[in-house]
């Protein structure tokens, strides 16, 4: 959403696909189902989007299949429930666009990538070194501040007695 990654999934398809287009088409159907859910939850939260969601797919055949309701010899066996994306495209609830596989962000979830490409996709997915520290490192900070507190107690015993001991959980 916007530039943030909010949902992802990497799973083996339970059905055998006869062609790459069919496999992509099934992946599209799964992604479209997820998008439909997101749209409804955004609507429920009072944030309806005026744009229809865009689904990027790197297979031209599958992109055509979503918009063109023709039956093709190689696609006639595809289960009917996968074709619900066509209705969505017809109603302009969803848009399909072709993306070259070198810009495909979902690549990181489907195949092992060479290091350079992996870094690039990782950055585009917004996975990066976080500026703020996470919980694991807070423990060290707490220990340091506790030690400082103890030092203060040694220096000024009267003041230290009045100070309310800090709750380590509140510091995080």
């Amino acid at each position: 959403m916007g530039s943030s990654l909010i949902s992802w999934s990497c799973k083996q398809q339970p059905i055998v696909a006869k062609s790459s287009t069919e496999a992509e088409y099934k992946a599209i159907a799964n992604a479209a189902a997820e998008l439909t859910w997101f749209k409804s939850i955004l609507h429920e939260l009072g944030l309806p989007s005026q744009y229809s969601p865009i689904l990027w797919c790197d297979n031209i055949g599958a992109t055509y299949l979503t918009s063109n309701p023709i039956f093709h010899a190689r696609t006639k066996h595809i289960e009917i429930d996968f074709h619900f994306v066509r209705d969505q495209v017809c109603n302009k609830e969803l848009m399909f666009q072709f993306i070259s596989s070198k810009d495909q962000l979902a690549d990181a979830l489907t195949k092992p990538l060479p290091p350079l490409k992996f870094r690039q996709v990782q950055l585009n997915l917004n996975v990066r070194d976080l500026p703020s520290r996470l919980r694991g490192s807070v423990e060290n900070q707490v220990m340091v501040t506790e030690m400082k507190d103890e030092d203060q107690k040694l220096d000024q015993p009267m003041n230290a007695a009045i100070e309310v001991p800090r709750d380590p959980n509140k510091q995080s």
Partner: protein
Amino acid sequence: MASNCHLTSTYGTPFIDISLYQSIVGSMQYLALTRPDLAFVVHKVSKFMHNPFDTHWLTVKHILRYLNHSVLTGLFIAKNVDFKLQAYSDSD
């Protein structure tokens, strides 16, 4: 994960400590919920939970080394003004 890495469940020497493999990979599955960069490799090594080989264990150690060096890496979610939904779909 190296792009020429092929894991198979047909040949190789079985890894001795199966429960160690299972517990480490099981923990990784939780980690993959917040780290999309791990999703694929964890999925890959999870396939051999029932009968891991030494090669699979090497891959798991590789992932652990990667994790060690990327402890502070995480998913960054920025404040947004537009709620434009985009999805990327791919299969392999």
